[in-house]
């Protein structure tokens, strides 16, 4: 079943695929490390979020973070974006009770400049062939991730659609990678297999 990106559903499906993949288990048997992905909302994202289902996916990410752990978003452009949609960062959010049609119409009126810097944070944590965490987080929630991968929504979207791999996006300057790069260069098999699995999740656009 196709899912929207980014969404809690997408993260759950990704985790399911990684943890049921025998090849990943084999090639990542020694891998220890997590990624904090910072997906910055760009103009393409604003266009995508005018689709109620895609917007619902984004909101499901926020809703999945317990409200007491959303403090990192306070005072950020992301909080401003949420407010423009009629959401408070620290409120209980039930995406099924929201009028996504109306909220998507509000997105159409938002100018990119007004929310520049807004982003959604994703934590992907791997340990000896297993994906332990695949979840949305707030800024500052994950201390000292081994890698930080950041860049605009459009660059991440190309990866999850399987149009391009993460290494290429970094080489093209579309994404930035920081962290223990030497470790990554020694362990490219888990990285490559994970990329393949990530692009295998069918995406609804």
């Amino acid at each position, binding site marked *: 079943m196709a899912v929207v990106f980014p969404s809690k559903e997408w993260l759950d499906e990704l985790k399911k695929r990684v943890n049921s993949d025998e090849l990943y288990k084999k*090639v990542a048997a020694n891998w220890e490390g997590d990624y904090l992905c910072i997906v910055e909302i760009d103009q393409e994202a604003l266009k995508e979020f005018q689709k109620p289902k895609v917007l619902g996916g984004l909101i499901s990410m926020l809703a999945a973070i317990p409200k007491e752990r959303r403090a990192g978003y306070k005072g950020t452009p992301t909080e401003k974006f949420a407010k423009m949609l009629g959401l408070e960062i620290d409120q209980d959010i039930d995406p099924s009770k929201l009028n996504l049609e109306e909220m998507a119409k509000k997105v159409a009126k938002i100018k990119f400049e007004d929310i520049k810097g807004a982003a959604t944070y994703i934590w992907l944590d791997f340990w000896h062939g297993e994906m332990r965490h695949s979840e949305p987080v707030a800024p500052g929630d994950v201390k000292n991730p081994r890698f930080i991968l950041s860049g605009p929504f459009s660059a991440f979207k190309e990866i999850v659609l399987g149009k391009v791999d993460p290494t*290429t996006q*970094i080489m093209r300057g579309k994404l930035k990678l920081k962290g223990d*790069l*030497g470790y990554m*260069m020694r362990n490219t*098999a888990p990285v490559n297999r994970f990329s393949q699995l990530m692009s295998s999740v069918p995406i609804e656009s």
Partner: protein
Amino acid sequence: MWTFVSPRFIVYGDDALSFLEGERASRVLIVADESITKLGFVDMVKSYLKAEKIEVFSDVEPEPSIETALKCTKVARDLQPQLIVAIGGGSVMDVAKAARVLMEVDIDPIAITPFTDLFELGYTKKAKLIAVPTTSGTGADVTWTSVLTDKAEHRKLTPANKEIVPDVTILDYRVVATMPKRLIAGSGLDALTHAVEGIVSVWRNEFSDALCEKAIEIIMNNLERSYMGDAEARAKMHIAATMAGLGFGNSQVGLVHSLGHTFGAIFKQHHGLCVGLFLPYVMQFYLKSDAKTRMDALARKLGLRDAERFIDKIFELMKKVELPTKLSEVISRESFEKSLESLVMNTLNDSSLGMSPRIPDYDQTKRIYECAFEGRRIDF
């Protein structure tokens, strides 16, 4: 956004080393190996330099280790050269490329990655680097990668960064005139592999295509002649190797190198021989990928019917220059079988793999090794 990386100057000809006469550095480090020193090439380089202080680091071994790069770094740190001249094959140039960075930045060599901001870490490019290749194959004189062996893990690692490319490469035909036949063959196949991998890489581009195509044409027409002692063909091969280096250096190598690096590190075989051994088998594996169209087009440019005929032609060329065409001619079945699991895992962890047009999974990698061992055609 993409960038094309190359040295500032490519100096070539019968007297190309005289370019060094214009260098004004007062402290120079020459990186070489024992055989290059014995052949008198280090003295030849010295004769062109006007520096007050010249030190020579000649402890580079074939398929050099990380430890060797660190030893060379220590010499460089003590001397603080303004110029490093690397004269030798790929091993020498790879050590010099790493030492040039490490003399300024104290990091694990493998932390020199394409994503590392070396300037942020304090790198200022204090020393200019001039490469003088003495074999015609590696392309290391113009690429931004360095291949070092991790002896503990028996695998090759590839520190890479656009800032490590040499500033100048000098292609002096005199230094390849006496190259041993075994090296002519091995390094020639290395150059051919670079050009073919560069042309099918997922990062291929118009610049790399042009360079790789021309390099393949020159190599296919001149390797055998160079092997038989033709001086003009030898000079052409020297140019073609650097041309292929410029090509693949800007589109990257793939599966052939992942297999070759791994095999070479475990069985301590010459790099050119290793990649040459795997080239035709990997091309067979690529026949079931988008790369087939590109290989077909390339074959037609060479006057051949299609990619399959091109592969046959490579096998023929390997035989003509007396290179093995299957792994069983190099290692025993027992040692092959004992190492197969490590061969497969290290191949899958090789950083070149990601740029291959078709990436094999675990089982396919194993089958590729088995076919290459037995000389069986790959049809999966």
